[in-house]
Structures are given as structure tokens and as C-alpha cells.
């Protein structure tokens, strides 16, 4: 378990709303899509924090808002004690040296007209490393670390397979020696045998450079394998944050429970009791009142329809946002089982 003292990143009540324009001239804000709606969490130094959720839950938006690739609507993001939400563009640019991102689709995120060498080198130019020889040295060094050969550097992205392109993406993120890497679905476009190569590489790099990862994924088994702590998102909100073992052994939120039970079983003879959720994820432009999960929840109570639950710590490193745990008895049961 990680020490609690070294908080690298603290996200507090982060919100990102996208306006839906309408009206005669298309300049009136009709509605807002609440992609990220009041998310708070902490990431410790050296750990891997996973964000899981289904499509449309706001996990990618959260990742991009932290890096201010999207401007947050509200809330603060403290990186090493400094609120990045208030930095001006110049300061932000310098800070991005410390926070880098690896994107999902290695086919779309690399410029097809640039050679691999130039793609990897570009951040160094941006961050003002003016000595060409030094840049070259760094590129070779990083390429070696991610398993690319020097000869491959003079090629173009289309000549590489998906797994290798993702290595290029990782090298590009790594070259500025960041402290935090936000990995947005880094392996979901890859085949399983390649996926494991990339995950192993990411783990090696983490050990070698003491990296901290925010690992965004929809794949629950990959997240379990790779992350230390995990936040489960649903409709723009964090519904549960916990240590991975605590979460997978005993999910508290009904949504987390259903999500975990929906995983296909790893063996044909091992059928499990599956909770099949009714219906689909509601639209984030028109979320249900109260707890946003209540229309699909099997243990929905009256209070869930009107009042929005808040994230509360139930036991060590395990917080959940659900009215089920409002009553003291229920709370004691949930907390007592572990102790």
C-alpha cells in the first residue's frame, strides 16, 4: 500500500460542461452536457490510479481536463501543491513538461507526415532544449528504453504496427521526463498479445523512472492488473474510489457491483451470478435527478430519486457515493466486514 503523504495530484470538484448551442443564430446555450460533474480524487506519487467506466461516463474528458487540453468549467487541480487551473498559458506550457499524455488510438495520434525521430523530438524543442546534439542523444536514449531501434527512427508512422506505434506515443510522452503520465486507453486498440507487451513496458518504465500514472480504461481486467487504486465513474461522477483489491473483492456501489459482474468469466465452467443492468446509460445532457444511477439500480430507495449522494469514506481507502451507506447500521456492516 502506498503512503498517504506524497500527494502528487489532487483534483477537487472538477467540472467540465459542454454547451449545446441552439436558438435562431445558434448562439444561445440551450443545455449543457455535464461530461465531468464534480469529480474529486487524489493521486499519490509513484502509484497507478485507474479510472474506469463505460463509454460516455466522462473518463477521457476528466483526463484531458487535468492536462487542460480542455478548460475546466469549475474546480481546482493541484499538481505538487500548485493549482493548475489558474495558470496562464505560458506557465501551463512549462508545466506540461511534468504531465504528459498517451492517447488511445496510435493510428490517429501520430502525425503521418513526420518521421518517428521528429515526433519523439518535438516536445524537447517545445520545452526549449536548444542543443541539437543533446536532443539527438535523448531521442536515442528514449527510443532504446521503449524498445525501438535507431534504424526505425527514420521511418514514418504508417510503417509500424499498432503496438509499435503505441511505443512511439509512449516515447514521445517520456522524453520530457514527466512525473505524471495520463494514459487514456493506451491498450484498447491493441490485440491481447500486443497489449501485454505494452503493459509490461509501461510497468518497466514506471519502476525505472518512478512514474505516476493515471490509467484510463474501460477494460476491468486490465485495470485490475495494472492499477493500485481505482475510481469508478458513472455519468460524470466518481461513484466509488478504492484500493483495487478492496474494490474487486467487495464493491460497495451497486453500479460497481454490476459492472464487475458483467465481466465475461475467465473459464467456461466458472459461471457467476450476473447482475444484468436494465436499460442504457442515460444521456449526460439530461441526467436523472438525485443519484444519477437510480433508474437502473436494483436497490433504489425514495431518497435516491431526489437527493444526490456524496462520496463518503466507508473504510480504509474505500469511498463510495451511495445512499445505501447513509444509515449507521449499514455503514458498520460494510466497514466491519473488512476489519
Amino acid at each position: 500500500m502506498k503512503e498517504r503523504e506524497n500527494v502528487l495530484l489532487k483534483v477537487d470538484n472538477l467540472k467540465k460542461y459542454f454547451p449545446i448551442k441552439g436558438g435562431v443564430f445558434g448562439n444561445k446555450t440551450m443545455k449543457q452536457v455535464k461530461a465531468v460533474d464534480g469529480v474529486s480524487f487524489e493521486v499519490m506519487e509513484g502509484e497507478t490510479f485507474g479510472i474506469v467506466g463505460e463509454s460516455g461516463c466522462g473518463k477521457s474528458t476528466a483526463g484531458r481536463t487535468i492536462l487542460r487540453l480542455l478548460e475546466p468549467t469549475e474546480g481546482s487541480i493541484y499538481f505538487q501543491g500548485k493549482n493548475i487551473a489558474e495558470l496562464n498559458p505560458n506557465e501551463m506550457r512549462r508545466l506540461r513538461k511534468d504531465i504528459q499524455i498517451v492517447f488511445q488510438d496510435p493510428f490517429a495520434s501520430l502525425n503521418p507526415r513526420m518521421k518517428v525521430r521528429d515526433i519523439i523530438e518535438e516536445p524537447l524543442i517545445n520545452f526549449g532544449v536548444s542543443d541539437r546534439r543533446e536532443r539527438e542523444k535523448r531521442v536515442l536514449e528514449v527510443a532504446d528504453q521503449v524498445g525501438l531501434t535507431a534504424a526505425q527512427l527514420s521511418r514514418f508512422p504508417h510503417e509500424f504496427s499498432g503496438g509499435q506505434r503505441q511505443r512511439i506515443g509512449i516515447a514521445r510522452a517520456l522524453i520530457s521526463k514527466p512525473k505524471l503520465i495520463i494514459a487514456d486507453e493506451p491498450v484498447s486498440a491493441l490485440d491481447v498479445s500486443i497489449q501485454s507487451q505494452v503493459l509490461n513496458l509501461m510497468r518497466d518504465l514506471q519502476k525505472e523512472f518512478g512514474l505516476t500514472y493515471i490509467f484510463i480504461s474501460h477494460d476491468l481486467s486490465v485495470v485490475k492488473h495494472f492499477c493500485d487504486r481505482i475510481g469508478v465513474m458513472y455519468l460524470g461522477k466518481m461513484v466509488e474510489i478504492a484500493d483495487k483489491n478492496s474494490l474487486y473483492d467487495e464493491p460497495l456501489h451497486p453500479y460497481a457491483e454490476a459492472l464487475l459482474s458483467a465481466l465475461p468469466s475467465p473459464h467456461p465452467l466458472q459461471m457467476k451470478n450476473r447482475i444484468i443492468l436494465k436499460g442504457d446509460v442515460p444521456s449526460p445532457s439530461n441526467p436523472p435527478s438525485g443519484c444519477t444511477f437510480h433508474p437502473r439500480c436494483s436497490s433504489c430507495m425514495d431518497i435516491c430519486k431526489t437527493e444526490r449522494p456524496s462520496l463518503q469514506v466507508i473504510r480504509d481507502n474505500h469511498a463510495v457515493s451511495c445512499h445505501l451507506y447513509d444509515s449507521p447500521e449499514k455503514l458498520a456492516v460494510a466497514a466491519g466486514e473488512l476489519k
Partner: protein
Amino acid sequence: MVQKVLEVEELKVGIKDEDGGKIAIVNGINFHLHKGETLGIVGESGCGKSMTSLSLMGLLPAGVERHGGDIRLGNLNFNSFNKKDWRQIRGKKIAMIFQEPMSSLNPVYTVGAQINEMILNHERVSKKEARNRALEMLKLVGIPRPEQVLNEYPHQLSGGMRQRVMIAIALSCNPEVLIADEPTTALDVTIQAQILELMKKIQDQLHMSIVLITHDLGVVAEMCDRVIVMYAGEIVEESLVVDLFDQPSHPYTKGLLASLPDIQEQKEYLSSISGVVPAPGKMPVGCRFAPRCSFAHERCKEVPPLFEMENGSRVKCWLYEDGETEVAAK
């Protein structure tokens, strides 16, 4: 003896290269499908699993051709088929659902019109009867408020609902064989669970046979009775689903299973298969997996046949040569 509904023999699918030569994408595969069973075809991207399924439907894209082999559905041989014959078969005897439900539904027709089209094409019924049948189908696949959905367009539905509509269309004429090409890959896990549950339920009700093409071994464990593992256009292993997970034989299958993150067991590193799938036209001589295989030896320069194992599995690997009976070339 269980009845075989579909038999595929020495199926070869390929593209033409610049000099007019042929590059094989699917290189002579054999399999059959029993009545009421679910056969899984697994493999990574580029292994030829989708081309196999498309050739079963006569839907190979332009430039890709079937170079040989027989596909038989009951007493029909697809080799002699012209366009008209295909149209009579598709949807009626053999139907398919695709990976991406949005791009396989027509955006300018209502859901009802698209189901009716299938029914009216194949059966002599009035429009009213067709509509009733469509309504029934939507109920069967568990769509809420089916009367309204009949008049809605695909964009008004969510991904899971669209896939249900696809299934309704595919099943509307009660086909003997359903081919499902990555039916849940584009869907979220909770929706995937709904769709898989639905497919199982309908299979029981209608006694259908399903060919399920997927790259997800979890889905295979869940759904299939028998599994075919494909690698680089060839079948490398064929076995019952339990045997595949308990005693995988081919080094590729073993590697694939080992590279899956296990939700119950914590490992620091995942085992992985080094290298990448060879590109069509650049296939290695002999066993196609040999360059990535840690058990590769001298013998692997020759193409291995399918060896039959004691438990009935068949494996294309020289490691199983001794003591195992070789399946006759047929």
C-alpha cells in the same frame, strides 16, 4: 451422430497482388458446425476470421476472392451460386450480425422498414403480417416500447438497442445458421452482458446454430461449445471450449491465454508473445507461428498437419507428432 448444418472444406480466400499472383488471407481451412451448437472462431486482427465469415455469406469485399474450397449448408453447395441464389439464402438460411451496429443499419429507413424488408424479401406475407412479425421480433429481442421503436430511425437508439435491432433483423426469417462477427466488441461490458444473455436465450428458443467470431476469450468462455483458434489465415487449434481453457495445446493458444490479465490472480508482469502477426504475402515458410514460438525447432520449417489429440482436440503443431494420431488429410 449430431447433424452437421454447415461444412467448410479447404476454404481459400485471397487477394491478387500486383503481378497477378494470389496472396492467401485464408489458407485452406476446414470446419463444420453442428445443429444447435455455438462455434467460436478466435484470433487476433488479421488472422482471417472476418474474411472466413464473410465468405460464408458471399459478401467478400471487392478485390478479395474465394480461390477454392467447398462451403455446404445442408445439401446446398455455395460454389454453384449466382447472385440470385445468394439473395435467396442470405437472411433465410444463414444470417449475419456485424460488429458496428450503427454502420450496418441504414440511417434513412426506420427500424420497422428494415425488418420488413427482410421478411417481405423472403416470405409471401402481406405488409400487415410483416409488420406484426417485426413487432414480435422486437419483443423477442427485448426492446422496450417496441411499437414506437418500429417507427424510429437507428440514430435515435443506443448502441445496445441497435445491436438488438440487428439481431431482430437477422432472426426475422428464422435462419438455420447465425454468423455473429464481433457482436459485442463495440459495446460496453454491461451492455455486452445483456446482448450475450439475449443471444443464448434466443438460441435455446429457436434451436439455432451460431458461428461466433471474436477476439475476446472471455466471450468465448461464456458462449461457445467448440472453438477454432486461427492464426495467420490457418486453423492452429480446434477443441471443446473446456479443453481449450484447461489444456491449451498449441503454443499460440497457450501464449494468448497467458497474456490475458487474470482478474483473480495478481501478477506483476503479463507473459506476452514476442513479435507481431506476419503480413499476408510475407508468411514464413513452414509453420507460420514458428518465428514467434519459443518451442520452434528444425522440424518447424515444414508445414505441420493437424494432429488429433486424445481428447479429440486437433492441433497444427509438430510438438504433438509423437504418440498422437494424425488426422487424414481429408
